[in-house]
């Protein structure tokens, strides 16, 4: 497959250049030129207003999917406890379902879990499909994939959302393969295209340096996973829903996997990538002792401590906790930068955080430009006050 530019039609507007995910377009003498590294992905064809870009690919026919309806959510549970991510997904599913005028359904698997149906209904499910079987007690890939595959093939949902938990990321790809539908991982935004009525799935790529919107036009359900904490659970206490039970049969010999033991562990060490809250310190912290107070704030908030390159080079924190261009890229829900000036190298590693709070003595510090909320003041006074008030509020 080849992509080429009709030079006479090209007006050199550079839209294709900006859209190309592979940096495979150059403007030469005011006209776009496709370079060798082009993968023929076709993004440039869609953005070209002058219709100057062509491809030899025959347009794929979009099948009729009018028999696929409903927005489904996989209701992940372990030991009879729902993972909060499925309630968050129900909140999103409700919004998508309303936009399409389609029902919202939850899929609940396990043994003796039907009690959880009511919770799912109270968070927006119109219908809960329940599959109960001894083989589904502990999560195992093949029986779960078998059960969900059967449900999807019987009821033909339009959209199917799963949490991007360890379980969801183990299961979703297998369902996608079996049903023959596309799957988009770790979406941060989901919406319905007002004209085409398809699901627009937006996710970060290249370590969060680029956002990509992905469509799933050629298969159903339109499957996506979403990380915990990205969507918002919306309680619907008056909602009424139906519980539909499905039979399921499987033999142990088909499964191939035994769970010998499940061990719960207290967390050791820090995991910045997974942290929801990060309290970061820079030069302004002053010394290793100063990080103690940041650690306290992180503990109160249930987060981790990180630092800038300066803090690492001074030996105040270990290098594995460095955030920035030469350290780690993080995207927590809350990033609290204390005594961090906000050099571009540091910002590159944290600018994708959901909320950024800056505490710095210098009101001109660049960190305030990327912060949602800033406090101009000495962190050695502000941080202890935050700890005090947070402890008081959690009572």
């Amino acid at each position: 497959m080849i992509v080429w530019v009709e030079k006479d039609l090209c007006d050199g507007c550079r839209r294709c250049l900006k859209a190309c995910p592979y940096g495979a377009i150059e403007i030469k003498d005011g006209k776009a030129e496709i370079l060798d590294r082009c993968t023929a992905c076709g993004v440039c064809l869609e953005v070209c207003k002058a219709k100057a870009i062509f491809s030899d690919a025959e347009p794929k026919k979009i099948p009729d999917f009018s028999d696929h309806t409903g927005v489904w959510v996989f209701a992940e549970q372990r030991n009879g406890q729902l993972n909060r991510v499925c309630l968050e997904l129900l909140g999103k599913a409700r919004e998508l379902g309303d936009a399409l005028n389609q029902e919202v359904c939850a899929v609940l698997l396990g043994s003796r879990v039907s009690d959880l149906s009511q919770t799912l209904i109270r968070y927006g499910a119109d219908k809960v499909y329940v599959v109960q079987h001894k083989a589904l007690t502990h999560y195992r890939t093949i029986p779960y994939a078998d059960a969900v595959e059967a449900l999807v093939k019987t009821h033909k949902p339009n959209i199917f959302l799963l949490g991007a938990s360890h379980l969801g990321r183990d299961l979703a790809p297998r369902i996608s393969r079996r049903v023959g539908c596309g799957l988009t991982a770790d979406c941060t935004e989901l919406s319905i295209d007002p004209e085409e009525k398809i699901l627009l799935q937006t996710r970060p790529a290249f370590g969060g340096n680029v956002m990509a919107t992905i469509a799933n036009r050629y298969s159903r359900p339109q499957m996506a996973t979403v990380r915990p904490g990205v969507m918002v659970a919306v309680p619907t206490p008056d909602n009424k829903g139906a519980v539909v039970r499905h039979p399921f049969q499987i033999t142990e010999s088909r499964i191939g996997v035994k769970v010998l033991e499940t061990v719960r562990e207290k967390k050791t060490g820090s995991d910045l990538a997974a942290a929801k809250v990060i309290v970061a310190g820079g030069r302004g912290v002053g010394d290793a002792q100063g990080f103690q107070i940041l650690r306290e704030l992180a503990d109160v908030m249930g987060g981790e401590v990180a630092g800038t390159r300066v803090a690492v080079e001074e030996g105040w924190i270990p290098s594995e906790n460095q955030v920035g261009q030469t350290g780690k890229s993080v995207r927590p829900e809350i990033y609290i930068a204390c005594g961090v000036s906000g050099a571009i190298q540091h910002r590159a590693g944290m600018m994708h955080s959901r909320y950024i709070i800056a505490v710095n003595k210098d009101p001109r510090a660049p960190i305030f430009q990327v912060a949602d909320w800033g406090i101009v003041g000495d962190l050695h006074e502000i941080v202890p006050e935050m700890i005090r008030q947070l402890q008081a509020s959690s009572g």
Partner: protein
Amino acid sequence: MDSIVLIKQVPDTTEVQLDPKTGNLIREGLKSIINPDDAHALEAALTLKDRFGGKVTALSMGPMQAIDVMTEALGMGADAGVLLTDRAFAGADTWATSFTLARAIQQVGSWDLVFCGRQAIDGDTAQIGPQVADWLGIPQATYVFAIESVNPRHITVKRRLEDGYERLQCRLPALITVIGEMNTPRFPRVDRLLAGCREKAPIRVLNAADIGVKTREVGLEGSLTHVIQTFAPKFKREGKILEGGKEGMVRELIQRLKASEGATACRAFASTCEL
């Protein structure tokens, strides 16, 4: 114990630089590396080979320049490399990629285990492993950080969960996805690297026809999902500098945080959230 290890060549996204003016990714001069999780997967396969013997084959799909990661794999101790390269493979989503890899695995010959990294740093999807396992119709264990034992019929592994781990016994043949916690990848040996660069190096380069797939089934054409837009992430920041005394500023900050979507992330507010 014969293994196949799936390896991807990726741009080193930790070295990514952003244009300070536009916030766009600067692509020039981006270094290519073995995907970090895949290096751990290769190390896991080589460790098994060291203990029980057998053959380790590295398999990659990518442009011709991905031959570099094949050489590196041979340098680390892999016995052979297979590079799938064809313009028809370009632009593939995970569906088309996993199909192509699975077809190639079926061509490579006999094997007991397929190892891969949990996810690649350029896409972060973690879908290829489970999808390949499903094409092959074999069980899988994902997020593996330890192998306890192997016998001709089973492998026993530890699999990382959010709040601990589980011990799984998995029937062979099986597919294992590995996380970085598992091991430290060995350095390539210079003599092996040099041998891997020679013309006679045991690296096979295969195209779509060689593995018996039609171009419509692979690459962009065989994909079910398509990128319709890319853009630099933009964040609307309130940029609000709070005012007042120490106590007042902190109180306002906490109120704003509590009212925001970030509230669920903070343990101190947990008592106000259901479940």
